[in-house]
C-alpha cells in the first residue's frame, strides 16, 4: 500500500496547469499551484484567437482563471519556483521560493495609478517587447491574481534607493518595499509538472533577417500585433512607415524539423497557427494577400483541414511548397524572399511583411529544473516520457502534462492535464466529499411576502470610481429610490471593513436586499453574496451595479454624464433588487458507479483508472474480444503494442470493480448526471440487464474506411495498411514485395470527408520502416499529399528517408492511377502513375504490392448513441465535445464524457491520455456524494403550460421536457444551465427564469429615468 496525501502540487500555471489544478481541486484535493511569472494563464493570454474556431483566446481562458483563483482548494503561488522535492511519492516534502512582490495583495485594488506614474519603462515581455511597461506593473490587463507587483531588478527605489513614487500615489497604501523572498515548505502526495515551452528565437538564422529587417517578425509577435488588446490595438502596420502591409509571407518550420539545430521534431501547432494568423490578418486588412511557404501543411487535428481549405478558398491564402533560403530588405522596407522548389527551381518574390512561424522548444532552465526534481530529459531537452506512459516522468509520483514533454496544441494540453491528474490520484487520498450539512449553514431570514427593505452601498474603489463619478451624489440619490431604507458610500466595499459595515447595516436596519454599486459582478459578486449570507440573507438577494468597469473607466472624460449613468445603473439595480426572491440550490445525489461504452484501448484505460480509484465500473463491449482497433497493431517503433494490450486486458478482466459485459450492446440510457439508468442486452442470449450509474464515458471507437478506390478488392496484392501490418507480422505476403507503393489519404481530406485521419502518415512510415528492416533491398514509394508526422514522429520520417524510401507528392486534383500489369492476372503486380505537381512530371512505378492508407471513419451507428444520450455529432458524424479547445473530453451534457477514436482519429498514446482525462473528469463528479444545482434555473407555471413542447426543442441541454402523463413541461434542475432560451420560446408565458424573471427584468428597465414615458402598459 503506497503512501497517500490530501495535497498535490502543480508546477506551471498555463492552461495545462490550470486544468490540472481545477480537476484535482474538484476531487477534493488541496492544490498548490506554483507559477514563476506574476500571473496564471501561461501562453494562452498572449494569443489573439485560437484555431479552428477563431474563439478569442482570453475570453475562453478567463473563466478558468477566475475559477482557479476562487476555488477554496487551490492556493496560487505566483513568482515562485520549486527549489527541491524530497521524499517518497505520497509523502513528498517540497521547498518553494516565493519572490517578494513588494505590493500587499490584500490592499491592492489594481487601479494602475502606480504604473502610470512609474518613471521606469521596461520592455513588456507579454507584448513580445513591442510595448513598454512600468517597473511596477500587472502582467496583462486580466492577469490573475489582479494585484500589481514590482520588478526588483528594474525598480529605482529597490536598485538605487530613490523614487518611491508608487508609494506616494497608491490610494490603497499597498506598497511595501520591505517585502522579502520567502521559502515555503509543503507536504504533497504527488507533483504535476506543466512548465510549458518557449518559442524558438530565429536570431540564429541570419539569412531570415530577424531583428535586422524591421518588417520581419515572429508568429508570436504578429499575434500580439493582431490582438485588439495588443501594442497595435489590432491595427497591423509596418514598422518602417506605419502603413498597412498589402502582402504578407509566412515562413514555416523556423526552428522545427531542422537537424542542423538538433530540432529533428515537428512543433505540431505552427501550421495551424500560421493559417489562423493569415485568416485573421485578412479579416483585419482589406485586400491583404498572404502566402505561406511550407514543407508540409500539418493540419491533422479535429476540423483543422476544413479550416485549411477555408483559408485557401475563402480567404485566398496562397500556399507555396518550397524552402525560403534567404530574405533581403529593399529600400522601401519591403522584403524579397528567395525560395527554392524541390526540383531546384529558384524564385524571388517581394512582400511587405514576413512572419516567421517559430517552432516550440523546451523552456530555458529545463536542465536545472530536471536536476532539482531528479527527472530525466529526452534527446531534445523536453521532459522524458514513454509512448505507453505519456504522462509520467522518470521519477515515480511526478507527472507531466502540456507541452513540457512534447509539442502540443491547447486541447491536447488540456487532455494531458486531466490525464496527469488521473495518474496522480494514485498517491492522493480521495474521500467522497459531502456537502456541508444544511444544519451548519447560517439560518436564513425569511423574505417571502415581506416588503423589500433595500440597502445600497456605493464604492469609491479608491479613486477608480470616485475620481470620475460623484460617489456621494449617487449614494444620496439612491435614498429616494423606492424601497431603499439605507444608502451610504464606502471607500472599498470589498475590504474586510467594508464587508463588516454591510453586515452590520443588514442587522441594524433589518435590510432584506442589498445592492452594491462597484467594480463588476464578474469578479466580486461571489464575495458579496457570501457576505450577505453570513448576515442571514439568502445569497440571491443581492444585486450589483457595475459603475467601475462599465462606467467610470469607460467614461473617464465625462464625469457628469458618468455620474448620471451611475445613478441610472443604481436605479436599475434597485429596480431589480426589489423583485428578487430567495433561491434554493437543490442537492443532487451522485451515484458513484460509471458506465463505459466500448472496451478498446480507451475504454479499458478509462475503466482501469476509475476502478483503481475505487469506483464500480460497467464496461460494455459489443464484440466478443477486448481491445478494439488495437488488436490490429503489431508494431510501434520498437515497442510491442500487443504486450501492452495483453496487460490491459488482464488488468480489466481481473479487477473486481470492473463488471465486464462482452458481446453486449447498450439499448437505452436514461437519466442525468449522477443518476443514469442503463439497459444492456447480450447479443446472443438476448439477456437484458439494467443498472444505475452516475457518469457515462463514450469510448466506442471508429472504423477503418472501406474503400473502392485504386482497384482495392480486385487482387490480394492491393491491401490496406492494417492488412499489410498483419502480413508484416506473419511475414507472409501474397507476392514477394520487392517494390511496394503506399498511397496516402485514401478516403481522407476530400470533398464530403474533409478531415485528416491523423494516424496514416505515421502508420505508413512505421510499416515502411518495418519492411525496410525486414527486407532492406525492398523499394518503397510513399505517394502522399502532406507528410503529417507531427511531434517527435518526425524522427521516424527522416530516418525512413535516410533508409532510401522515395516520397512522391500528388495533389487531389490529379490522384494516382492504378492499373494491373496484366489485367488477366490479378497477381501480376500493379502500375501506379503519379503526377507530381512540384516536379511537374509524371512518375510511373511498377510494384508488387500496393498499400492503401485508408481513412479512419466514424462508426455508422454513432447517431444511435448520440440520440440515446442526446449528445451532438459534428458534420463528419464524429461526437462533438463541449468545447473544441478547453473541454475536449466533456460533453455539454453534464456527466457524459468522451475518449479515444470516438472523438476523432488519434494515435495510441493520445487515446490513452484522453481515456485517463475522461476518467479524471468523471472522477470530479464521482468523488462527490452530492452536487448543488444552480439557483438560477427555469421554473414552470403548471397552470399556464399547455405542454406544446417548444421549450424541449429549444433547450440545448435537454434540461426541460414535457411529461407525457401530466402533459406539462418539467425542468431537470441538474441539467438546467439557466440560459433562459426556453423562457423566451414559451408561447403561453408558463416559463420563467429564476433570478432573471420577466418581472425582475421589466422592473430593471422600468426603473430607468427615461426621457418620455408612454402610458400603454
Amino acid at each position: 500500500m503506497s503512501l497517500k496525501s490530501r495535497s498535490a502540487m502543480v508546477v506551471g500555471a498555463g492552461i495545462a496547469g490550470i486544468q490540472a489544478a481545477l480537476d484535482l481541486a474538484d476531487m477534493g484535493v488541496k492544490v498548490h499551484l506554483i507559477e514563476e511569472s506574476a500571473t496564471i494563464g501561461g501562453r494562452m493570454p498572449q494569443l489573439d484567437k485560437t484555431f479552428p474556431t477563431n474563439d478569442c483566446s482570453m475570453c475562453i481562458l478567463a473563466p478558468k482563471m477566475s475559477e482557479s483563483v476562487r476555488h477554496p482548494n487551490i492556493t496560487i503561488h505566483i513568482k515562485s519556483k520549486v527549489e527541491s522535492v524530497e521524499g517518497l511519492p505520497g509523502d513528498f516534502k517540497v521547498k518553494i521560493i516565493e519572490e517578494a512582490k513588494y505590493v500587499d495583495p490584500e490592499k491592492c485594488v489594481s487601479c494602475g495609478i502606480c504604473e502610470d506614474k512609474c518613471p521606469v519603462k521596461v520592455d513588456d515581455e507579454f507584448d513580445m517587447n513591442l510595448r513598454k511597461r512600468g517597473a511596477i506593473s500587472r502582467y496583462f490587463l486580466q492577469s490573475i491574481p489582479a494585484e500589481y507587483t514590482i520588478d526588483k531588478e528594474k525598480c529605482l527605489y529597490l536598485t538605487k534607493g530613490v523614487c518611491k513614487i508608487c508609494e506616494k500615489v497608491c490610494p490603497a497604501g499597498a506598497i511595501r518595499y520591505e517585502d522579502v523572498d520567502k521559502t515555503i515548505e509543503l507536504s504533497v502526495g504527488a507533483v504535476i509538472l506543466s512548465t510549458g515551452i518557449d518559442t524558438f528565437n530565429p536570431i540564429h538564422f541570419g539569412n531570415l533577417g530577424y531583428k535586422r529587417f524591421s518588417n520581419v517578425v515572429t508568429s508570436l509577435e504578429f499575434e500580439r500585433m493582431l490582438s485588439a488588446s495588443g501594442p497595435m490595438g489590432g491595427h497591423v502596420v509596418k514598422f518602417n512607415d506605419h502603413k498597412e502591409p498589402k502582402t504578407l509571407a509566412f515562413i514555416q518550420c523556423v526552428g522545427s524539423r531542422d537537424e542542423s539545430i538538433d530540432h529533428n521534431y515537428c512543433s505540431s501547432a505552427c501550421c495551424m497557427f500560421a493559417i489562423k494568423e493569415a485568416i485573421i490578418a485578412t479579416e483585419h486588412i482589406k485586400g491583404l494577400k498572404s502566402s505561406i511557404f511550407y514543407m508540409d501543411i500539418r493540419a491533422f487535428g479535429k476540423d483543422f483541414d476544413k479550416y485549411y481549405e477555408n483559408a485557401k478558398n475563402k480567404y485566398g491564402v496562397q500556399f507555396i511548397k518550397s524552402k525560403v533560403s534567404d530574405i533581403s530588405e529593399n529600400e522601401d522596407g519591403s522584403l524579397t524572399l528567395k525560395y527554392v522548389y524541390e526540383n531546384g527551381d529558384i524564385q524571388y518574390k517581394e512582400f511587405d511583411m514576413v512572419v516567421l512561424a517559430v517552432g516550440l522548444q523546451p523552456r530555458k532552465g529545463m536542465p536545472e529544473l530536471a536536476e532539482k526534481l531528479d527527472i530525466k530529459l529526452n534527446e531534445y531537452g523536453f521532459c522524458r516520457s514513454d509512448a505507453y506512459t505519456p504522462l509520467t516522468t522518470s521519477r515515480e509520483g511526478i507527472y507531466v502534462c502540456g507541452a513540457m514533454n512534447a509539442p502540443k496544441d491547447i486541447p491536447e494540453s488540456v487532455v494531458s492535464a486531466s490525464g496527469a491528474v488521473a495518474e496522480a490520484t494514485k498517491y492522493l487520498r480521495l474521500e467522497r466529499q459531502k456537502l456541508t450539512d444544511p444544519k451548519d449553514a447560517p439560518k436564513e431570514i425569511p423574505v417571502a411576502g415581506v416588503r423589500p427593505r433595500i440597502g445600497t452601498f456605493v464604492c469609491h474603489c479608491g479613486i477608480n470610481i470616485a475620481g470620475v463619478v460623484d460617489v456621494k451624489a449617487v449614494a444620496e440619490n439612491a435614498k429616494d429610490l423606492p424601497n431603499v431604507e439605507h444608502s451610504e458610500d464606502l471607500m472599498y466595499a470589498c475590504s474586510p471593513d467594508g464587508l463588516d459595515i454591510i453586515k452590520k447595516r443588514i442587522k441594524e436596519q433589518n435590510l432584506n436586499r442589498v445592492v452594491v454599486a462597484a467594480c463588476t459582478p464578474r469578479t466580486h459578486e461571489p464575495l458579496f453574496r457570501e457576505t450577505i449570507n453570513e448576515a442571514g440573507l439568502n445569497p440571491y438577494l443581492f444585486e450589483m451595479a457595475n459603475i467601475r468597469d462599465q462606467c467610470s473607466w469607460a467614461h473617464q472624460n465625462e464625469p457628469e454624464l458618468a455620474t448620471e449613468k451611475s445613478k441610472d445603473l443604481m436605479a436599475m439595480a434597485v429596480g431589480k433588487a426589489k423583485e428578487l426572491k430567495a433561491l434554493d440550490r437543490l442537492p443532487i445525489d451522485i451515484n458513484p458507479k460509471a458506465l463505459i461504452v466500448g472496451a478498446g484501448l480507451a475504454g479499458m484505460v478509462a475503466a482501469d483508472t476509475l476502478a483503481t480509484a475505487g469506483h464500480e465500473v460497467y464496461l460494455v463491449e459489443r464484440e466478443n474480444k477486448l481491445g478494439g482497433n488495437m488488436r490490429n497493431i503489431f508494431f510501434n517503433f520498437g515497442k510491442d503494442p500487443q504486450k501492452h494490450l495483453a496487460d490491459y486486458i488482464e488488468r480489466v478482466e481481473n479487477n473486481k470493480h470492473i463488471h465486464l459485459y462482452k458481446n453486449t450492446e447498450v439499448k437505452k440510457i436514461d437519466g442525468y448526471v449522477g443518476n443514469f439508468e442503463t439497459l444492456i442486452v447480450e447479443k446472443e442470449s438476448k439477456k437484458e440487464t439494467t443498472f444505475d450509474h452516475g457518469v457515462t464515458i463514450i469510448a466506442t471507437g471508429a472504423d477503418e474506411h472501406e474503400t473502392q478506390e485504386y482497384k482495392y478488392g480486385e487482387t490480394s496484392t492491393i491491401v490496406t495498411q492494417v492488412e499489410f501490418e498483419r502480413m508484416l507480422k506473419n511475414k507472409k505476403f501474397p507476392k514477394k514485395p520487392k517494390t511496394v507503393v503506399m498511397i496516402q489519404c485514401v478516403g481522407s481530406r476530400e470533398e464530403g470527408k474533409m478531415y485528416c485521419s491523423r494516424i496514416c502518415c505515421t502508420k505508413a512510415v512505421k510499416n515502411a520502416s518495418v519492411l525496410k528492416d525486414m527486407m532492406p533491398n525492398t523499394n518503397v514509394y510513399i505517394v502522399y499529399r502532406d507528410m503529417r508526422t507531427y511531434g517527435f514522429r518526425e524522427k521516424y520520417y527522416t530516418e525512413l528517408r535516410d533508409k532510401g524510401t522515395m516520397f512522391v507528392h500528388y495533389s487531389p486534383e490529379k490522384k494516382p492511377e492504378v492499373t494491373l500489369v496484366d489485367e488477366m492476372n490479378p497477381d501480376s503486380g500493379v502500375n501506379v502513375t503519379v503526377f507530381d505537381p512540384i516536379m511537374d512530371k509524371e512518375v510511373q512505378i511498377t510494384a508488387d504490392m500496393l498499400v492503401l492508407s485508408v481513412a479512419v471513419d466514424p462508426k455508422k451507428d454513432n447517431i444511435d448513441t448520440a440520440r440515446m444520450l442526446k449528445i451532438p455529432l459534428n458534420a463528419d458524424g464524429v461526437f462533438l465535445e463541449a468545447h473544441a479547445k478547453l473541454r475536449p473530453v466533456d460533453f455539454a451534457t453534464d456527466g457524459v464524457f468522451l475518449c479515444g477514436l470516438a472523438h476523432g482519429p488519434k494515435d495510441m498514446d493520445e487515446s490513452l491520455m484522453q481515456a485517463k482525462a475522461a476518467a479524471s473528469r468523471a472522477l470530479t463528479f464521482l468523488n462527490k456524494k452530492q452536487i448543488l444545482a444552480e439557483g438560477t434555473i427555469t421554473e414552470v407555471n403548471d397552470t399556464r403550460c399547455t405542454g406544446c413542447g417548444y421549450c424541449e426543442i429549444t433547450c440545448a441541454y435537454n434540461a426541460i421536457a414535457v411529461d407525457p402523463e401530466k402533459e406539462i413541461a418539467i425542468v431537470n434542475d441538474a441539467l438546467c444551465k439557466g440560459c433562459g432560451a426556453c423562457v423566451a420560446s414559451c408561447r403561453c408565458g408558463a416559463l420563467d427564469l429564476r433570478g432573471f424573471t420577466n418581472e425582475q427584468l421589466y422592473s430593471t428597465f422600468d426603473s430607468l429615468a427615461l426621457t418620455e414615458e408612454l402610458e400603454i402598459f
Partner: protein
Amino acid sequence: MTKKFEPKIVSFLCKWCSYTGADLAGINRSQYPTAVLPIKVMCSSRIDPVFLIKSYLRGADGVLVGG
C-alpha cells in the same frame, strides 16, 4: 429646458460574452458614450421581443442586444 439631449440605449448583454466584453473595454479604458445602459442576462436567447418593445415604450432611445 436647455439640457442637451442624451440618448439612452437599453443594452441587454450576455453574461458570458458581451457583458464580459464591456468589462474588458473598461479595463482597457476604451471610451464610449454614456448612453449605453447595460442589463446583464444569462444568455441573449433569454431576450423576449417583448423586452425590446417595452424598453421603447418606456422611452428608451435605442435597444442593443449583445450575445
